[in-house]
């Protein structure tokens, strides 16, 4: 009789641990997706480059750690800055010229750019998987029976901080207000003196910045290779559709939901199918509720 009494608590601990793992992953997913969502919402452009931007951020963190000894948590600034510059140039120089064109044109254009960037990374860094081996990992600790992997947890918290900073930039700063204004009504914003093309370039740069920052945090968790780009892109897609497009809260809810779904899915039908469930869920959601859990919004 005693084992039967113990069993439920053991199961509930197991579920709590899986939920925790899922949420830690989900926080990072939210950080990957929030930049993608911003670009999609404001520019109406699906940025196929986003996955490769994340990978590029990881490489910057990797090389900064290996050659300069900079901890990946600090490289967030480095990777974010570099990616912002790259994103700004790509938008101002190329995508701005076709931004009003039909969906297909911008999609195919960013796909073409992604082929170039991804192939460039394979040539420069090879397709081999690399990992950041920290000299002084934080390890893990046990709190109330739950194992807390500290490096991951800090990475997730930093991802959340970055996401919150982006939120305040959009809500409080004048650039942020201009981005939201363009999102709501491009013509009206232009009439109010907003330089729409410049705002587009900044928005795309911010999206790339978030991707680069997420990449440098992820370098501690996932092996780094250009081949991972499409998986990160897939995650960004799913999170945006799950949570709903056009709001920071949507990306956070979607990211956490995806992390939890993936963790429990891995428990139920095996770890290799985690993303499959998410994709199936994505199709079902698109069919029945394409606006996502939080609904479509305008960053108001």
């Amino acid at each position, binding site marked *: 009789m005693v084992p039967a009494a113990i069993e439920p608590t053991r199961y509930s601990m197991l579920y709590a641990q899986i939920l925790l793992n899922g949420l830690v992953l989900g926080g990072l997913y939210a950080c990957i997706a929030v930049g993608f969502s911003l670009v999609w919402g404001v520019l109406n452009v*699906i940025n196929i480059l986003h996955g490769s931007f994340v990978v590029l951020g990881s490489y910057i963190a990797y090389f900064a750690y290996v050659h300069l000894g900079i901890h990946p948590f600090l490289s967030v600034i480095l990777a974010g800055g570099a990616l912002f510059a790259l994103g700004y140039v790509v938008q101002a120089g190329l995508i701005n010229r076709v931004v009003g064109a039909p969906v297909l044109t911008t999609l195919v254009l960013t796909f073409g750019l992604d082929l170039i960037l991804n*192939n460039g990374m394979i040539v420069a860094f090879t397709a081999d998987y690399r990992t950041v081996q920290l000299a002084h990992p934080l390890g893990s600790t046990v709190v109330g029976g739950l194992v807390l992997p500290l490096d991951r947890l800090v990475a997730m918290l930093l991802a959340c901080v970055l996401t919150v900073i982006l939120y305040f930039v959009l809500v409080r700063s004048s650039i942020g207000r201009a981005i939201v204004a363009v999102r709501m009504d491009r013509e009206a914003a232009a009439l109010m003196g907003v330089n729409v093309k410049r705002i587009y370039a900044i928005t795309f740069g911010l999206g790339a910045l978030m991707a680069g920052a997420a990449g440098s945090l992820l370098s501690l968790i996932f092996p780094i290779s250009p081949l991972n780009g499409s998986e990160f892109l897939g995650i960004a897609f799913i999170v945006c559709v799950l949570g709903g497009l056009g709001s920071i809260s949507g990306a956070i809810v979607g990211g956490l939901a995806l992390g939890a779904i993936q963790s429990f899915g891995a428990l139920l039908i095996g770890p290799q199918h985690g993303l499959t469930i998410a994709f199936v869920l994505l199709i079902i959601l698109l069919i029945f509720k394409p606006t996502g859990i939080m609904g479509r919004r305008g960053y108001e």
Partner: protein
Amino acid sequence: MTVRPIYVLAALLLVAFLPLVGDNYVLRLGTMFAMYAVLAQSWNIIGGYAGYPSFATAAFFGLGAYAGAILQGNGLPMPLAWLAAGIVAGLFAALMGAAILHLKGHYFAIASLVLAEVLLEVTTSWTSLTGGGMGLNLPVIRMSVEAQAQLFFWAMLGLAVLTFLMSWYVSSSRIGFALRCIRQNEDASSMVGVNTTFYKVVAFVLSALFVGSAGALYASWVFYIEPPDVYSVLTSVKPIVMVMLGGAGTVAGPVIGAAAFLVMEEVVWRNFLSIHSAVLGLLIVALIFFLPNGVLGFIRKRKRTGADHSKETAA
């Protein structure tokens, strides 16, 4: 001034004499051209005429490849397996189309892109039926290498001609008219009595049938298939590039685009193997900036400069 469909048909039939002049390498190129022509013309139905940014070509192609391979493995004669694969892809398109064609723009693009992703995962997981990640071998054909090369070349070319006839018929029929209405203004066409849902599903099925058969033919041709190969996202993107290259929403454009694309791809593969996908990317970028309406659009624009542009989209 446009390229008349009848000329394109004549050119396609002329390609059939290729075995008389070329070696196996030329025949391989010819087979690739025919396959690309099938994919591009099929995509043109949903993407060009109806204006729906579909990325589902890889899903239809991979599904057809696996359906054909499994049926052949169970003893169905090759031509019947090709036919059945087309039907399987068509049924899949009908079911999925009914579900996702109410989405617009980016949402439709993503949903269609995810179809291939889900099929890829399902195929990889269902090891007992598909061989999973190990891939699937097809039954050996007892024929000389030359005879095989010719057989698959003619079969694929035949499929390309069939697809061409379908596309030609669609463009001059009620279906084509309805699809063009949908592209220009879906709400308005629905208001004046076009059954938009029905025609969109028809277009999606037509864009799947021949691609499914082409997938099965491809599987028979290369003897061995594996999920990442047949469900590759490039299979979805290449036809779009071809159609953009040739001219979307025209009968002749996709065929011209397929030929032009094949030539470029072959040159790139031969000279820049390690950076071929970057060169393909550059080609795409250049295409969007310098030839936004394709080769046909470019010719047309030069022939009647100053002409009314609204006619161009209506023609």
